[in-house]
């Protein structure tokens, strides 16, 4: 499907504006498959960076409320652990129920906040849909084929993993991590059993971001 089939609707305007710049990355070499790979890589990196930025902004805006909700879950979880240690089963069940209720609330809050990270992925996939909708790559030795979505996913995952490793060493993100770690302390404390022994992710405190 070529660019000329775009509707001149308002929602297409961002794509029309970005298209000349994005498509340039798909025309860097003389090899079609390499072009597609490089272009998809650039799109994946852009989606990741924009998602990181917007999710940080949103997390920062709701940090206080999130602290309250996570703090309540932490409080009742610690109480349930204390009850377990003393063998008080009714008290454990009561505190655990309240901890689960608070956890559910924070779970859904995080779920909604996740949208701040994901929307660029779908935004850029929307552009790829119009550019590469009919493109398919048969997977060798199988009856299946990979479309632009499959290639994007396969490229995005390692980009995400790699970025996560180096993110907190990059100048801008060092500051973000410091800020988020301060506010994510209640969430991080959920990893600690009352003996002070960290569980789960012993490497660091919890974070509002993945």
């Amino acid at each position: 499907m070529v660019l000329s089939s775009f509707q001149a609707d308002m929602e297409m305007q961002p794509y029309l504006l970005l298209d000349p710049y994005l498509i340039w990355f798909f025309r860097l070499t003389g090899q079609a498959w390499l072009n597609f790979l490089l272009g998809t890589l650039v799109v994946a990196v852009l989606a990741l960076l924009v998602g990181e930025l917007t999710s940080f902004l949103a997390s920062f805006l709701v940090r206080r409320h999130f602290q309250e909700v996570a703090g309540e879950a932490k409080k009742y979880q610690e109480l349930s652990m204390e009850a377990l240690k003393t063998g008080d089963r009714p008290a454990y069940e009561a505190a655990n129920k309240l901890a689960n209720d608070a956890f559910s609330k924070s779970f859904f809050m995080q779920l909604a906040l996740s949208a701040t990270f994901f929307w660029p992925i779908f935004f850029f996939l929307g552009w790829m849909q119009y550019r590469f909708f009919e493109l398919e790559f048969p997977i060798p030795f199988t009856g299946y084929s990979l479309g632009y979505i499959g290639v994007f996913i396969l490229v995005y995952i390692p980009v995400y993993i790699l970025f996560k490793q180096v993110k907190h060493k990059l100048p801008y993100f060092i500051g973000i991590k410091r800020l988020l770690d301060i506010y994510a302390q209640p969430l991080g404390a959920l990893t600690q059993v009352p003996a002070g022994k960290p569980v789960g992710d012993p490497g660091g405190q919890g974070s509002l971001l993945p």
Partner: protein
Amino acid sequence: MRNKTVLVIFFLAALAVVATLALAEPSWAGKLEEAIAQTPVGTGPGMIHPDMPKGFMGIPGAPHHFFLFYILWGIWVGWIFSSVGAFGGIMAGVGHISVFGLSDYGRSFRQTNPALGKLITDSIRTSNQYLVGLSALISSFTYYRMGRLVLPLGLCLAVGGILAGYLVPLLTVGKMAVSLYVGFFGIIVFAVAFVLFYETTPKGQEKKKAAKAAAKAFEEAHIKKSTQVSAEHAKGVQVTHWGLSKIAFTFYGQEFSFNPIWPLLGGFVINGISAFIGVGGGFLYVPFLTSVAGLPMFIVAGTSALAVLVGMVVNIFNMMVMRQVPVDFILISTELIGIAIGSVLGPVTSKKIPDIWLKRIFVVLAVYVGIGYLTKGFMGHSIFPGM
């Protein structure tokens, strides 16, 4: 060890992408285009005319709304998620089914091209899943990183979830008419309405009050005492018995046990609902695990997160990559922008509106939607307007 795993995954993924692209010739295909080509040409119901403006999924003549409308609905969904919780997923589905007119559009093809109608149904389901399920992936991953995992429990849930994630798309993709989907969606809405309603009843409220009183009493009785941590406590989760009818483990000196068939069935049903309807799933694991094994919350967080992670990966991979269900990414991205905004607004308003009144409003809404969809799905038309 962890870095090595990451590097291996990265290398394998990169190898897979390069090999596929280098060795394969691109070929042209499109379930959607095939379906459109088989539809009668015209401007009446159940017809497609190529000169009509493109709408949903780029189909000429399909419903099409100003993008701000999608964002506004997304704000509503995000606000509900960050205020009340579970009902947000239902509203996401309502948007796709009723508000944007997609189910009526899909139904219009039942005489002229049922295959296109079923494709639209599958796209609605997958869109729901992207909107709700993918977001659950991130929050689940966060809790999975944090929480302690009960491996046998997590495995049983995951196996059940994988089975459902494979079987449900296999049995239903390309086979479900919009009406049937809407009817089943109505049943799920009723289930959520029932749970919300129970929480607003005096009995439901009493249980929570009693729990708070018991927790407070314990806290006051033990506030000055610090319990010594024994060697038993420091061990964490210890699985003591593996069996086909019973799996037992100790945690903090207390024994917990469960029959593995229950988490297997639970994982199957919960992920099956998620794969079938597109919403629900994640939030059901926590109460399910609490009632099955009475587990401490921070074990439930990690264990259920594993199940959600596995289930979502299987569902989305199956629907999108293997079954090639098309979705409208512009619709989803604009809705996600709205949900992102709503997620920030929810905390702002939550202090001003009591939780119980929010739940009461949503109970009324859920009953309205549930009855509307049940009658629309199984009787052919909704007894309530707007559905």
